[in-house]
């Protein structure tokens, strides 16, 4: 099987508009969660959010793209894709090669324009600018057109695990020989649609989320995008290799439409498949970037699942305490953060943790720790409808 390497990364989230800014916040233990300024929702006053610190028009003017009907979801995607491409030094010819795939993910798509969509759906809008912008695939079509992509294009929606599945799909296309490169990741902007949905489910916290804390009381929604450039060993040449994609697993928990089973069936199966694919024993994993949403259900289930597989818990954190839950973008954002840990050989503290959950009594990483020996990292993402995914990356040898 061909080796698949990460040769470029791009990220925009509440803790920064590029990789350097995101890394700096993680090293300083500085969250991006706070009062939303750009978000148009009544809940902007009631709940904290992991909002990207740029207005939609600032995102647009930073990009210099001529296309019309661009939503915040699209602009976040463009920003992270552009950075990833620059970091991988991909030429225009390489980007628009038939052998370059683009696998993306989104759950809100253009529905971040909640009111505009309502008007268009009921034929009461004056403008037609956004009529082709609402679907979760709209950002991908715009990116495909802008970069003149000619390879396989796909968009995945498995709710909160979407972009981890996009990374998997891109890796598998390369391993099968159907592509030599893949641009993979996901994007989601904050919008009334998801905020009201999660609020209706009563899983939003009034305070910044407290992953793995006994007194956690829900998640904090965030927004952002992250993309990775994956390249086959045959074409990487002498490029800087950020990581190797070693293992991946996908399973359905088959328990409930919007919560995970107490037994952690899907969680365990996804992690097991990833370890098997990577041919690694659990003891080899140095750190887990957890899904860690800080809902009652998720954190207990994830700790149960990790215990079942690992026995002793490896170092773990939830970087959602920095960015909030960025939904379809979370798997890719957290994979980029995992790459930081591999590259820098350091671990970042999980924020807002005080009291461990019994009976697990597990403490996430609480301090910034440099000079660690980190070779293998696992990233987890679980979503509504039982969709569980797990990814393992390693230091390129």
């Amino acid at each position, binding site marked *: 099987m061909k080796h698949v390497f990460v040769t470029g990364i791009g990220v925009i989230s509440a803790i920064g508009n590029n990789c350097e800014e995101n890394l700096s916040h993680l090293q300083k233990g500085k969250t991006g969660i706070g009062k939303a300024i750009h978000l148009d929702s*009544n809940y902007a006053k009631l709940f904290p959010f992991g909002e990207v610190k740029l207005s939609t028009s600032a995102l647009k003017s930073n990009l210099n793209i001529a296309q019309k009907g661009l939503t915040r979801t699209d602009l976040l995607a463009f920003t992270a894709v552009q950075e990833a491409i620059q970091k991988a030094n991909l030429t225009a010819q390489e980007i628009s090669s038939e052998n370059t795939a683009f696998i993306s993910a989104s759950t809100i798509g253009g529905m971040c324009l909640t009111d505009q969509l309502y008007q268009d759906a*009921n034929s009461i*809008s004056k403008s*037609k600018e956004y009529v082709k912008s609402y679907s979760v695939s709209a950002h*991908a079509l715009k990116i495909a057109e802008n970069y003149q992509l000619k390879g396989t*294009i796909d968009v995945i*929606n498995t709710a909160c695990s979407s972009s981890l599945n996009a990374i998997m799909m891109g890796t598998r296309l390369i391993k099968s020989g159907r592509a030599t490169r893949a641009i993979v990741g996901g994007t989601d902007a904050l919008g009334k649609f998801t905020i009201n949905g999660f609020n209706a489910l009563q899983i939003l916290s009034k305070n910044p989320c407290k992953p793995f804390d006994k007194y956690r009381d829900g998640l904090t929604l965030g927004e952002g995008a992250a993309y990775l450039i994956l390249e086959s060993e045959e074409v990487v040449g002498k490029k800087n290799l950020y990581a190797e994609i070693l293992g991946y697993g996908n399973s359905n928990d088959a*328990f409930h439409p919007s919560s995970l089973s107490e037994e952690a069936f899907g969680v365990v199966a996804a992690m097991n498949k990833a370890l098997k694919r990577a041919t690694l024993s659990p003891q080899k994993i140095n750190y887990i970037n957890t899904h860690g949403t800080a809902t009652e259900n998720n954190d207990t289930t994830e700790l149960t699942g990790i215990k079942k597989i690992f026995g002793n818990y490896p170092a773990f954190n939830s970087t959602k305490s920095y960015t909030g839950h960025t939904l379809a973008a979370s798997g890719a954002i957290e994979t980029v953060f995992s790459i930081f840990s591999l590259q820098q050989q350091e671990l970042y503290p999980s924020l807002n943790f005080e009291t461990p959950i019994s009976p697990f009594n597990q403490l996430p990483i609480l301090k910034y720790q440099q000079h660690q020996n980190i070779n293998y990292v696992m990233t987890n993402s679980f979503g*509504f*409808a039982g969709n569980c995914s797990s990814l393992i990356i390693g230091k390129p040898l």
Partner: protein
Amino acid sequence: MYILDHRCISPQPTFNGCFFTGEVKINHGNLYYSIEPDYTDLIPKNLLRRMEKATRVGIGAGIPLLEKYPIIDGIILGTSTGGFSGCVEFLKQIVQYNEGTLTPTNFVQSTPNAVAGILALMSKNRGYNITHTNLGLSFEATLLDAMLLLEENEAKQLLVGAIEETSEYNYNIDSASDFFKEIAVPSTQLLQSNTKGSVRGEGAAMFVVSSKKDNALCELVDVAQFSFPQKNTIQEKVLQFLKKNNTPLAAIDALVLGYNGDNRFDFRYDELAEQFNDTSIFSYKNLIGDSPTANSFALWLSCSILEGKEIPKEVYYKETDKEIKSILIYNHYNNIQHSFILMRSV
């Protein structure tokens, strides 16, 4: 990859099999709605009551296959928007109650991955589970994904399929982007209308696919996709696709083409057809309407042709005497997303 079985709910009587006894429904207007089966034996009543149409048709077509085949190693679905009407119902609540206290049912069900999740839940299937949502290539991605999984030996048999729902809401949005005919024609005249715009349909088509030939109905040889083609790309692309699969043009016995009566874009199908002599041509959007995953119906129809089923005359666009052992399916959505599927008899 081999196809072992299928179920299809569409604007034609495809689920109960009457389609093959010549019963073809004539549709009027711009929206063709599914002929839904009696779900009594398929879905428990308490679940059915809360299901939106996209969920109902997806479960209705998928569950019989999951019950019939004890080994299904994963569920791979494609849809452009899933339960979009539920999604707009939730939007309506947001706007009307000014983000007040809302009920989450519409929100949870309207996520496009809900159907694959409910299928997994109802059949306790903990295998691979994914939903592809790349608009007009969502279904093609499910086929590619399934082919990869079978090659990787991660699965022996899989459920793949597509679901699509139409409603007044996507009608309003797609109208604003000039998708629909301004002057409606009955389905019998759709392909000859020579005006801009088309009609929209809905439904679900589900398939059990396997890496093994045993008990197969037909073979799905390969699938390919491309977006934003230049002029003349179709001719080049089809040659490239057939060459990759060691299939000369002359070996194709039939074409299943996505003609939808939109005079802006149907020329693509003519361009492709011009390259083939002596091939039968089938059309199907005159029966079921267009939708981003209409190609799942094309696959279902192609399976039925290769199985030797009695095909209604309404789907013959051009008839030849040639025995049909291989089929090329070509479809595009709004002339932006294009795909080929190559099928063979077993």
